[in-house]
């Protein structure tokens, strides 16, 4: 039997996803909200990066559905016990890779371990050789001879399969678009190939093709080799990098969102009401701002560590403790980063309160809270939107730095920061162990680059000053 488990961050992630879907449905009906998004959809970079981001989001969502497995226990008086391990759906799909552990480091695509080991030969003598890996290339009879042809052959077949899958998907999509726009299939295909469609389908299909081929290739080769090598305890680095996606996404999104209501409310109230409210809010954010961010985070996280260490009874398993620590880190990061948004909103609200339509509302006797929610809030939402998207990439990068300092996520949690931290000391080895570092950096780089380019597209669409 399997019991679904809802960790704190999982719950927040699902709330977030529901909110996004609901607000998308709402925005569909309003023309003034649709217009900027239409511009995003029409930008080529925006849509290409959106596909890349969606891949990350899918991995993160799969990794957010946790469950516990029942332990086989007979004669326990009908009491059901669950395993302490809390895997996610992603773990389930990656079980073969997750469970085959090597002894220690091995290079990407290697069939032999990284270091020599003393083994007993058949004739009773001992020799120091590079032992074969349990998982990587275990299907090869003679790695020296077969390895190259096997990797090339498998890659070629994976790419072919990927392209085939892509063709099917693209043809289906084109048929669907053609049906929706009531054009003939051939006409639609021609328009897309020549890049004359409204929505940049051509760019999206090319990106989709790259993504599909890459996924199929990773799946095919990943089942036979460690495509990014293994780490010190022999765990697959590719698996670690995928597991880290969720951590990165959560830090990037929840951080801004936990403090968002405060930042928006306080900022607008300070700017609109002025007087003592303004003084208090200004004092609050200047004080928080004046503490160097990383030190405030360090101080708070140190205190949290002491708290967790002295109250072990509150956390029933390691996953829950690590999860709570992640949530707490988001909160702390949020506290240090909401001030910028709050100050911007205060300025904007100050500008808006002098506008004619607000004055008209005041003259009609509309109450203050109504003016704020009805007239000011919708008119500052573009600033909120831009700031959420712009903050994302910075926060993903900050996670790595904080984990390095030792005040980041729990050391047992998978994150790019922890991967870098663990691999950094192995730089001095000869030959160098570079794969963990490079895997973490590349996964992070792709996500951050996609987020940066996407946020540029969003900003161009939403910032009224940039609109032509």
């Amino acid at each position: 039997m399997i019991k679904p488990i809802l960790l704190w961050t999982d719950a927040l992630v699902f709330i977030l996803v529901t909110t996004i879907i609901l607000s998308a449905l709402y925005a569909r009906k309003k023309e003034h909200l649709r217009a900027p998004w239409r511009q995003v959809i029409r930008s080529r970079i925006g849509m290409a990066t959106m596909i890349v981001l969606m891949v990350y989001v899918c991995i993160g969502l799969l990794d957010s559905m946790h469950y516990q497995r029942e332990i086989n226990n007979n004669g326990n008086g009908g009491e059901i016990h669950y395993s302490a391990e809390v895997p996610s759906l992603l773990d389930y799909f990656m079980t073969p890779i997750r469970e085959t552990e090597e002894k220690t480091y091995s290079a990407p695509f290697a069939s032999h371990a990284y270091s020599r080991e003393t083994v007993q030969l058949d004739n009773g003598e001992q020799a120091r050789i590079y032992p074969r890996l349990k998982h990587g290339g275990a299907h090869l009879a003679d790695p020296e001879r077969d390895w190259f042809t096997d990797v090339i052959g498998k890659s070629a077949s994976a790419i072919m399969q990927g392209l085939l899958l892509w063709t099917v998907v693209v043809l289906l999509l084109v048929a669907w678009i053609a049906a929706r726009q009531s054009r003939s299939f051939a006409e639609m295909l021609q328009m897309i190939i020549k890049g004359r469609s409204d929505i940049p389908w051509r760019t999206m299909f090319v990106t989709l093709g790259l993504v599909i081929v890459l996924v199929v290739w990773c799946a095919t080769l990943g089942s036979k080799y460690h495509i990014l090598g293994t780490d010190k305890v022999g765990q697959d680095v590719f698996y670690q990098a995928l597991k880290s996606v969720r951590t990165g996404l959560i830090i990037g999104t929840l951080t801004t969102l936990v403090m968002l209501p405060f930042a928006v409310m306080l900022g607008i109230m300070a700017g609109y009401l002025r007087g003592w409210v303004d003084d208090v809010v200004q004092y609050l954010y200047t004080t928080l701002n004046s503490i160097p961010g990383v030190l405030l985070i360090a101080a708070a996280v140190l205190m949290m560590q002491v708290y967790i260490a002295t109250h072990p009874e509150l956390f029933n398993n390691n996953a829950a403790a690590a999860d709570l620590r992640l949530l707490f880190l988001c909160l702390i990061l949020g506290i240090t980063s909401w001030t910028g948004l709050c100050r911007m909103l205060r300025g904007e609200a100050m500008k808006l309160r002098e506008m004619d339509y607000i004055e008209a509302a005041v003259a009609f006797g509309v109450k203050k809270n109504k003016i704020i929610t009805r007239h000011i809030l919708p008119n500052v939402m573009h600033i909120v939107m831009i700031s959420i998207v712009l903050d994302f990439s910075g926060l993903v990068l900050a996670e790595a730095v904080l984990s390095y300092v030792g005040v980041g996520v729990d050391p047992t949690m998978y994150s790019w920061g922890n991967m870098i931290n663990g691999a950094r000391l192995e730089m001095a080895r000869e030959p160098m162990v570079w794969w963990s570092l490079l895997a973490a950096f590349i996964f992070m780089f792709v996500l951050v680059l996609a987020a940066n380019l996407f946020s540029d597209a969003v900003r161009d669409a939403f910032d009224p000053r940039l609109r032509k």
Partner: protein
Amino acid sequence: MFAYIIRRVLYGIPILIGVNLITFVLFFVVNSPDDMARMQLGMKHVTQEGIEKWKVERGYDKPLLVNTQSDGVAVLTDTIFYEKSVKLFVFDFGRSDSGRDIAYDIGQRMWPSLAIAVPNLIIGLLAYITFALLVAFFRGTYLDVWGVVLCVVLMSVSGMFYIIGGQYLVGKLLHLVPVSGYDVGYDAIKFLILPVLIGVVGGIGGSTRWYRTIFLEEMGKDYVRTARAKGMAELSVLFKHVLKNAMIPILTGVVVVLPLLFMGSLITESFFGIPGLGSYTIDAIQRQDFAIVRAMVFLGSVLYILGLILTDLSYTLVDPRIRLS
């Protein structure tokens, strides 16, 4: 002007009190000194006597806010709040949890931090302004478009990658400079080249893009059009008019970080093994030395407020339109 400065300094005091209260609550109310002692001494085998001894040695054995056992002023002064928080206002940092004089350590360690931060800032500023001017000069062309794309790509690379990659490439493969370490006097230079270089390279993406926006905004203004209409060459428009005016936002952005240069960079110093204030802070965090972290939080806030005051002053220096009152 003088009255303005005095007023700004006075404004800083409530903020510092706020910072102090936050750290006090974080360090002494959320967790009692007992918890800290238990953490420091190891969770398992720790006796109540051990905890008491640890607290007495570091002065954590007093009441938090009000000492009912003393009389006179000592009711308020013989407390943790007075000893550990109020004394920070006169820069009396006291001793670290491992017993060293914090003020002395800060005085010693700020020099290596400055030795990296100052050249980094100056060389970086020159490089970024040059690149941004170049890109702005060719605005609208392919050089501009790809320059911006390159900036975004460089911005998306983790700062730690620059450090690790730079150490590997320059230090290990090319053997040009030592990978990490520090020395006194002129010998320090060879240890400083790599961190400064990496610091400058790491900032290229973000800063160039930011300065480019400033330049472009300035170039869209009327006075630039007038200058062009009078037949000035594009280059002299750029250097004589645009650069001068764009220096206002650039300089004021730099002035605010000037005081914070003392604090050093956590990551750079710890990767390169430079004994500055950044690595001092990181060590304190990792050893969980709360006294040092407290002192650094306070110092950081003071320097930040100083930076804000300096920024306001620098506005009057570079922009004659602004008068402080």
